[in-house]
């Protein structure tokens, strides 16, 4: 663990990313306590420019809503959707990849054709269609993002499992009479953890981008304030009120950037040999 931190902190970008990420996490936790009013509530006259009123640092939107409150409440949605949809993609991708890599043969063939199908479908367009058909809600958004994001997980897992499959400790486990399920769960999966963690951190970033794009198109959950929604709402008044679209976009950019940086740092820390090669 100490070694892990040492390697992680050697990557300056990763440390900066971690700091930004922690700030966003803290913001999402304290948001309901600082901004006690609903982010949908009209609190002042519309179109107050940023940095002109102390009570509304980031100004107000065309409906007179506090932009800072919207941003703070939106942080929770972005992180939540990013995290949960990544967990769901892992729950789909890991079993498929592990079974394909472990059993090989026709099982592998069938599962990989299935994976390939999902990879050759334009992913964002599929997510749009899914959310539209099942009606926008936080659940349909999370599931749609997971449905279009799991193939890389399955492919990664398959490759890892295939190379572990022929190692001595797995052969020993087979000889000792353990069941396939035990071998996959106890012997093989723990050894695939580091690449999964690295991939997952990047997937959270990608999921946040997809979520914001969906909300921007009007496919967000109507009851939840999200960054993409604010930008979408500010789009039509961009000429009069640049700040309404500007700040939420900056928030998305910083969060996604932070996650990508942390992902690179995790890669350095968890796969030291691989990381050296790349440098």
């Amino acid at each position, binding site marked *: 663990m100490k070694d892990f931190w040492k390697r992680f902190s050697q990557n300056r970008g990763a440390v900066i990313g971690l700091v930004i990420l922690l700030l966003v996490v803290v913001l999402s936790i304290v948001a309901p306590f600082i901004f006690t009013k609903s982010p949908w509530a009209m609190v002042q006259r519309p179109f107050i420019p940023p940095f002109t009123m102390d009570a509304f640092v980031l100004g107000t939107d065309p409906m007179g809503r506090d932009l800072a409150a919207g941003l703070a409440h939106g942080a929770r949605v972005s992180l939540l959707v990013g995290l949960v949809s990544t967990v769901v993609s892992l729950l789909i991708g890991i079993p498929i990849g592990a079974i394909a890599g472990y059993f090989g043969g026709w099982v592998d063939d069938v599962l990989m054709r299935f994976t390939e199908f999902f990879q050759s479908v334009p992913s964002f367009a599929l997510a749009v269609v899914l959310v539209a058909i099942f009606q926008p809600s936080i659940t349909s958004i999370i599931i749609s993002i997971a449905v279009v994001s799991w193939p890389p997980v399955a492919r990664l897992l398959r490759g890892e499992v295939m190379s572990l499959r022929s190692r001595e400790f797995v052969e020993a486990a087979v000889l000792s009479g353990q069941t396939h399920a035990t071998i996959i769960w106890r012997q093989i999966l723990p050894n695939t953890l580091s690449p999964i963690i690295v991939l997952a951190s990047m997937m959270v970033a990608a999921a946040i981008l997809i979520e914001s794009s969906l909300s921007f198109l009007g496919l967000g959950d109507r009851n939840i304030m999200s960054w993409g929604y604010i930008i979408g709402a500010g789009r039509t008044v961009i000429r009069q009120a640049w700040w309404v679209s500007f700040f939420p976009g900056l928030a998305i950019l910083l969060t996604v*950037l932070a996650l990508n940086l942390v992902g690179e740092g995790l890669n350095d820390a968890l796969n030291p040999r691989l990381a050296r090669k790349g440098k």
Partner: protein
Amino acid sequence: MLRFISGRLLKAVVILICITVLNFFLIHAAPGDPASVMAGEAGDADPAFLQQLRERFGLDQPLYVQLWIYVSSVVKLDLGYSYRQQLPVLQLIGERLPATLLLSLSAFVISLGLGVTAGAFASARQGKWADTIISLVALIFYATPLFWLALMGVLLFSVQLGWLPGFGYETVGANYTGLSRSLDILLHLILPAMTLGLFFMAVYARMTRAAMLEVGQLDFVKTAKAKGLRPGIIQRRHVLRNALLPVVTLAGLQAGQLVGGAVLIETVFAWPGIGRLMFDALSQRDYNLLLGVFVVSAAMVLFFNLITDVLYRLVDPRIRVAS
């Protein structure tokens, strides 16, 4: 080679049929009566029209019969009728397709050209300030939401500076013809194509840089250096050429992303392509049109993937020999 292409073509057709089947089940999975979903009137469609839809798609028959009717009509290029726009779906898409192709191909050329150049430049100056700046910019673009970048582009270049038009395909009411019309469209194309291309430009730059640094450590590069070749020639002729292989793989991946990006970019810039059509279908709940655009864009992506697969084989002699 011909066998390879026909094999891939067959695979693409199978995937396309699977997508059609998926579409069919999506219509049935949507809340409400499938006929009313297809009509896209949120339950308010004319009963006579609903009955007509039921008969045409055999919605009163068993599911497998319905599936057969649906898939065979799509195979015959019949994507149905958009009740909202009062036009066949295929005609609507056909009218918008050229604008999307123009936009996506321009974005593709921009991202590939600028990305590979920037990546190669950065790798040649590894660790110097030029490398740091290019890597940093690529990292930032990699994290930027496309639609936001597009809005900021409009704000800066169109609203503030007034250099470029911020929306549309050509100047409305100007009635240019010939060369001046092409120039007008080109001017309108710059902002959307640049923003659509920037994300993948960042991806290509990162990829090219990493691949060139990796190839640069291989033995044949040392040999070239030992022979006394100039560094510029080694970089261009030996390193870059070998580093381009993973880039070609990426190009196939980009096709799928371009379609999704086109929905966002065309929405921001009011670009009259199929992405904008998809957005209109969304806001009008015109599901039949939405699914039609989805099938056509999937077909487009499959076609691009087929081309990159063929190109990959032409570029890399190792694959040619291996199969």
